């Protein structure tokens, strides 16, 4: 291939004699082309996406459960307080306070080096840590969304004889979902970018491979710029999807 001839020619020259353009091309070849290194970045991309999806699922499930517990606790009729719900509510409050009150990085290090220090699968430990972190933020977003739906909607549902869960499922949650989609989208974008922190506990994802390439070639600029562009493209795709979904959910607002 054309670049291989160029690469061999350039690497044969003494480094001091290289012009700016030549040195640029040489570094580019080393970062992406030599030894099919571009495949490593794609492999990293795969891990990053896998990590994001697992953390996302954990985050959504945890977030919705915590939000529903906290909202139903707050909406109980006076005199009909459920003690079990009180305990659950307390646990949920501790969870959101601790997670939102400590840095993501510190949490990941604790998961990786304290709680699961014997575990070999660092990527999955990272996914768990990210998911648990994301859950606390999602819970607050979802709770805000549930509270933003007019109480008259719940009353209308209940006055028709629907039970609490059906009222939530068919009436409140769909409306809340529409209201929170922008903030939820932001949370997911943050989550995608935060997967880069997993490299700190030895998890394999895009940053891990960029560092590996950089370590091997003693040249970090192109690997890091490369993954920066990849993150940017991923976020742009997510934002585009988010906008599309918002437009679809606004369907019932048309007049």
């Amino acid at each position, binding site marked *: 291939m054309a670049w291989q001839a160029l690469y061999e020619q350039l690497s044969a020259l003494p480094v001091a004699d290289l012009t700016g353009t030549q040195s640029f091309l040489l570094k580019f070849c080393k970062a992406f082309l030599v030894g099919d290194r571009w495949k490593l970045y794609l492999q990293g991309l795969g891990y990053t996406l896998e990590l994001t999806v697992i953390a996302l699922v954990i985050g959504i499930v945890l977030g919705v459960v915590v939000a529903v517990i906290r909202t139903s606790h707050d909406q109980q009729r006076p005199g009909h307080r459920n003690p079990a719900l009180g305990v659950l509510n307390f646990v949920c409050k501790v969870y959101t306070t601790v997670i939102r009150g400590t840095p993501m990085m510190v949490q990941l290090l604790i998961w990786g080096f304290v709680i699961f220090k014997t575990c070999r699968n660092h990527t999955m430990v990272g996914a768990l840590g990210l998911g648990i972190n994301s859950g606390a933020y999602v819970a607050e977003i979802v709770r805000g969304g549930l509270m933003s739906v007019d109480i*008259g909607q719940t009353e*209308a549902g*209940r006055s028709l004889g*629907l039970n609490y869960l059906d009222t939530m499922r*068919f009436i409140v949650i769909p409306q809340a979902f529409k209201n929170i989609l922008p903030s939820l989208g932001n949370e997911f974008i943050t989550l995608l970018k935060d997967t880069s922190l997993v490299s700190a506990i030895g998890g394999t994802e895009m940053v891990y491979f960029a560092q590996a390439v950089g370590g091997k070639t003693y040249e970090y600029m192109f690997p890091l710029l490369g993954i920066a562009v990849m993150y940017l493209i991923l976020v742009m795709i997510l934002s585009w999807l988010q906008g599309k979904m918002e437009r679809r959910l606004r369907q019932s607002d048309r007049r």
Partner: protein
Amino acid sequence: MIDVKNLSKSFGDNLVLDNISEHIAPGEKVVIIGPSGSGKSTFLRCLNLLETPTAGEISFDGTLITDPKTDINAIRQQMGMVFQHFNLFPNMTIRKNITLAPVRTGLMKQEEADETAIRLLKRVGLEEKADAYPAQLSGGQKQRIAIVRALAMKPKVMLFDEPTSALDPEMVGEVLDVMKQLAEEGMTMVVVTHEMGFAREVGSRVLFMDGGHIVEQNEPKAFFDHPQNPRTQLFLSKVL
């Protein structure tokens, strides 16, 4: 049909209903009037337990609904309610608004609920709106749909909480017409309203509430022509 015994309700230190006892018989059209803050909406909302009474008992068809062991959902399925602000579900089509409750509570199959919805929509002249969303309707249309939604559950009694107060004046008539039609068919109705004409024409009994008490009640003609209590007289002199 509805029996209220010594009902009291307070919000914090604010006593809104003070020891009210009342009986509503099948087929009655009870109209509740009174100044704002008199407790008339709270009284109505206590009847299907949207507000939990602080003290007292309410029974419906012989079932004590204030008993915590009573399945309140089963009771509410038999009591329709229409709200001041309609409270249609904006995320669903009109058809889905109407059929959701009958289907989910197991009262009807989807096809039967769809047929019921169309039949009821025809009655209020809105069958062409079945696939529209609430945002596309006028206030009067929304309130007629809200009535239809409550009727789809085949309730034994209908509660109306100021159904025309949030409407443009020219749309009040179309909603009152539907309510009149319902009254003529013999539905038991409890209506909180400021529409004195409706109270006089449709009501079988008028209750006047003030300060958490039922100050005076009578059949409409006698109530409006010869109010007894000075407070009632003052109120009527201002609104009539």
